[in-house]
């Protein structure tokens, strides 16, 4: 028992702020940006921080909008006070106005309207009651609302991302807001961490830890103060977790029988059963459930080289999906089930590919040379992946058509293994 305590003490499970900021910079232009003006909200200074500043930053960082300069313009909270002709001449398509006020119980009321400048009508609006601690989240929700009204797609500004940071010999599994703020370490270790995967409801994370000098699988609640017992610590290596969309099943790769094979289990590790049984010595790994939960995509070299296959989640004969080249791995299906993102080695370069699952057309989204670990945003519009620049591990976000790009990094550290969290119910 003393030894167990020593092992546990070697790890820290924190819900504390992480040290170094996650920075996000736009590096590839977006086309057809919608010009939008976000006016400071009336009485916004009652809030602990500027809500419109965060809304503006969200919108412009998405690459879909060009936010117009509004310096020196007085806040307006009523539509009747809006000078539409003026905004038309500034070439704004949309205008955001609003107001904030302090409530008697110490909370705040924030309400806004999104206006169509051409038609001079309100496209929508919303009112929020919030605490001081909820200012950032409220700003993200407002940005989501604007994004959805103007693009027709759901915004991901209120979502979170997970990633692994390596600094010297220290590894951290962190969760941050999609804008890089509020990073929290959920695991700190002197040994590597890999393959973080969010549970469908965003409350738990499966991950692989090398804390016992071999890969072991954990499922940990994001609010946990201690690391739980592992869900898979069998003979050999335990890795590559994947969640079923109904959260009832965890897929993973175990080597209990001497080769890397895909198993299914309950998220607590019980009810273990083997899913794949390829010819002796073949590798089956990287299981990924389709959004309808019916199929699993995975990587296998049963045909002689690593390729992507699909099989029914209930078992059966796998069908090969990739045929170009001799190295296709890391399959991820988009939330709408229509696109497969994966990594392909082409002329020695590892690059991100997208395949239309209906017509099987493929498109290279990046050039590599060392791109890996793709993860879809829950609106399917952006893919986050890992790469490196000048010897330092960084993340990139690329729009699903490959046109718009951001780089995400942590100063003086390597960042890797991203996982984009789901839409949350609130």
């Amino acid at each position, binding site marked *: 028992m003393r*030894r*167990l305590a*020593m*092992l546990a003490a070697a790890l820290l499970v924190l819900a504390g702020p992480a040290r170094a900021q996650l920075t996000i910079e736009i590096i590839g232009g977006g086309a057809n940006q919608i010009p939008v003006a976000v006016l400071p909200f009336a009485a916004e200074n009652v809030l602990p921080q500027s809500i419109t500043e965060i809304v503006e930053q969200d919108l412009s960082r998405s690459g879909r909008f060009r936010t117009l300069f509004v310096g020196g313009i007085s806040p307006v909270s009523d539509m009747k006070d809006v000078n539409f002709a003026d905004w038309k001449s500034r070439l704004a398509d949309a205008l955001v106005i609003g107001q904030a006020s302090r409530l008697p119980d110490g909370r705040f009321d924030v309400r806004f309207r999104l206006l169509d400048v051409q038609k001079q009508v309100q496209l929508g609006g919303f009112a929020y009651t919030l605490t001081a601690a909820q200012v950032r989240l409220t700003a993200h929700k407002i940005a989501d609302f604007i994004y959805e009204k103007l693009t027709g797609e759901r915004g991901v500004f209120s979502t979170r991302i997970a990633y692994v940071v390596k600094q010297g010999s220290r590894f951290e599994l962190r969760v941050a807001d999609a804008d890089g703020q509020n990073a929290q370490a959920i695991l700190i270790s002197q040994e*590597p961490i*890999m*393959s973080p995967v969010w549970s469908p409801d965003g409350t738990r994370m499966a991950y692989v830890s*090398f*804390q*016992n*000098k*071999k*890969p*072991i699988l954990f499922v940990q609640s994001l609010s946990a103060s201690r690391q739980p*017992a*592992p869900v*898979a*610590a*069998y*003979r*050999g*290596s335990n*890795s*590559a977790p994947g969640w079923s969309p109904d959260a009832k099943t965890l897929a993973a*790769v175990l*080597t209990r029988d*001497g*080769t*890397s094979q895909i198993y299914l289990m*309950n998220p*607590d*590790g*019980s*009810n*273990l059963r083997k899913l794949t049984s390829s010819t002796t*010595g073949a*590798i089956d*790994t*990287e299981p990924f459930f389709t959004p309808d939960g019916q199929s699993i995509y995975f*990587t296998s070299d049963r045909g002689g080289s*690593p390729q992507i296959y699909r099989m029914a989640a209930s078992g059966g004969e796998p069908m090969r999906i990739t045929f170009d080249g001799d*190295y296709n*791995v*890391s399959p991820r299906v988009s939330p709408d089930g229509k696109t497969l993102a994966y*990594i392909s*080695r082409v002329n020695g370069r*590892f690059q991100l590919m997208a395949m239309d699952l209906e017509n099987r057309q493929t498109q290279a989204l990046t050039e590599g040379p*060392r791109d*890996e*670990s793709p993860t879809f945003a829950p609106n399917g519009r952006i893919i986050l992946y890992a790469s490196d620049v000048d*010897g330092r591990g960084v993340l990139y976000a690329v729009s699903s058509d490959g046109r718009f790009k951001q780089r995400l990094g942590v100063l003086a550290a390597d960042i890797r*293994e991203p996982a984009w969290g789901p839409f949350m119910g609130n």
Partner: protein
Amino acid sequence: MKKALFPALALALIYGCASTPTTETKPAEQASPATPPAAPPSSAVQPIQPGTVQGESLKEGTLAKRSVYYDLDKYDIKAEFRPLLQAHGKYLAEHRNAKMLVQGNCDERGSREYNIALGQRRSEGVKRMLVLMGASDSQVEPVSLGEEKPRCTEHAEGCWSQNRRSDMLYGGEY
């Protein structure tokens, strides 16, 4: 669940817990000879340390070498490493209480998870040969570190070849 997991967990804890900041050896996990011969005080012969037998120390000579290297995309044991595995296999055969962890590694190229599986192929191959050379199945656990613990990080063959490797660790060393 607990029944299936416990033996594996216990094994993992034994391996995990054996790693302490100090470098004390743990005779219970390394095989020690049943009764090491005591050196008579007047003799010039050194007293024999735990973990050695007949002058063969895990810290000297052949047995101190613990790494097998591989060609690109390969996991078969090259002829030049067979004598090494023969020596370790023999040691394990003669010290039935000794345990070994074999960690397979890959160079950095490609998917991290696929590299875990490739590293496992390498360590399984080492285990198979050790068993052929006399080790028993339960003495050797093959695991993989994939590309996660490289010895070097340059994007060049000079570094990649160093990372295509299996390492053998005895109890008390991890």
